[in-house]
């Protein structure tokens, strides 16, 4: 099944408002879908016998700062059965307070677990209903999101210290 046919089937199943933009670049189609439909569309792409996308290559994110919406989440899919690939994206707005939120797809593809954890810590994003929302690579005590465009490359002593700060009282008692 070629990529245009997959896009047309998505439009016919979920309606024209679910598929917002479809860009063809170098024979690869990037389809931007509505953020709140991501999980339904992913489940459809996995379960439909013509699609059978049983393998999630990766979940990643892009920071489009200072554009709005700021973030896009990218899902690269592959079907081992039909040997075809497909890419969907979801634009995620940064809220006034707190972190941008998008639905987790771990229940559809369990391999999304670590990819979503990495994306969450690097871009400061919340994956709703993620079964294990801990950090993956970064130290537990960091609160910054290094792959955001407004993050300074070298970090700062306050935000990215080498070692966790010990409480003062412990230091003096030794």
């Amino acid at each position: 099944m070629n990529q245009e046919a997959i896009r047309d089937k998505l439009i016919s199943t979920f309606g024209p408002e679910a598929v917002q933009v479809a860009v063809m670049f170098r024979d690869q189609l990037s389809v931007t879908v509505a953020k709140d439909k991501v999980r339904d569309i992913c489940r459809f792409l996995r379960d439909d016998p013509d699609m059978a996308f049983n393998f999630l290559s990766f979940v990643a994110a892009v920071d489009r700062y200072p554009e709005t919406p700021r973030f896009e989440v990218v899902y690269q899919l592959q079907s081992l059965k039909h040997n075809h690939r497909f890419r969907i994206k979801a634009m995620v707005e940064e809220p006034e307070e707190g972190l941008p939120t998008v639905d987790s797809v771990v229940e559809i593809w369990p391999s999304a677990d670590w990819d979503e954890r990495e994306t969450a810590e690097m871009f400061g994003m919340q994956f709703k209903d993620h079964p294990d929302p801990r950090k993956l690579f970064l130290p537990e005590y960091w609160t910054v999101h290094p792959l955001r465009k407004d993050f300074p490359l070298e970090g700062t002593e306050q935000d990215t210290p080498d070692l966790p700060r010990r409480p003062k009282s412990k230091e003096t008692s030794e």
Partner: protein
Amino acid sequence: MGIERHLNDTVHVTSLEWFVNWSRKSSMWPLGFGLACCALEMIATFVSRYDLARFGMEVARPSPRHADLMIVSGTTSKKMIPAVVRIYEQMTEPKWVIAMGACACTGGIYKNYAVVQGIDRHLPVDVYIPGCPPRPEALLDGILQLHAKVMKEQSIRNPKISRVKVTQE
């Protein structure tokens, strides 16, 4: 050297300090761990082509309690540095540190938020070996420099005490 000649040169007289230093440098056991690509050059130094056993150093100890020398071979990420410091603290005195490669010396090409900008921010480094990675000859030269340094130490009169640098508030 009168007494040696009296005993037909069967004994040698030296200072105790020289002897202690000589025995320390002649069987300096490195800690068997590697952090990045420099570790491969370190392994190459151990095997028969370069043969670290010539200097009494072939016994890479997996336990820090048995080791005298920590060769920090490679990039130290900030996630890794608590473990490296912990291992150093567990080594018994006397102990020495070699910073092997550009990353361990200064952070190298990784001038970013995730990599420690030089292992000497936390550990007292004795010998720095630049290179990316240094060849086994360079590591051997650094080790011989360390041996020369050990021979100059006042191991009896003024024994050194190694401490982790405390950088916290």
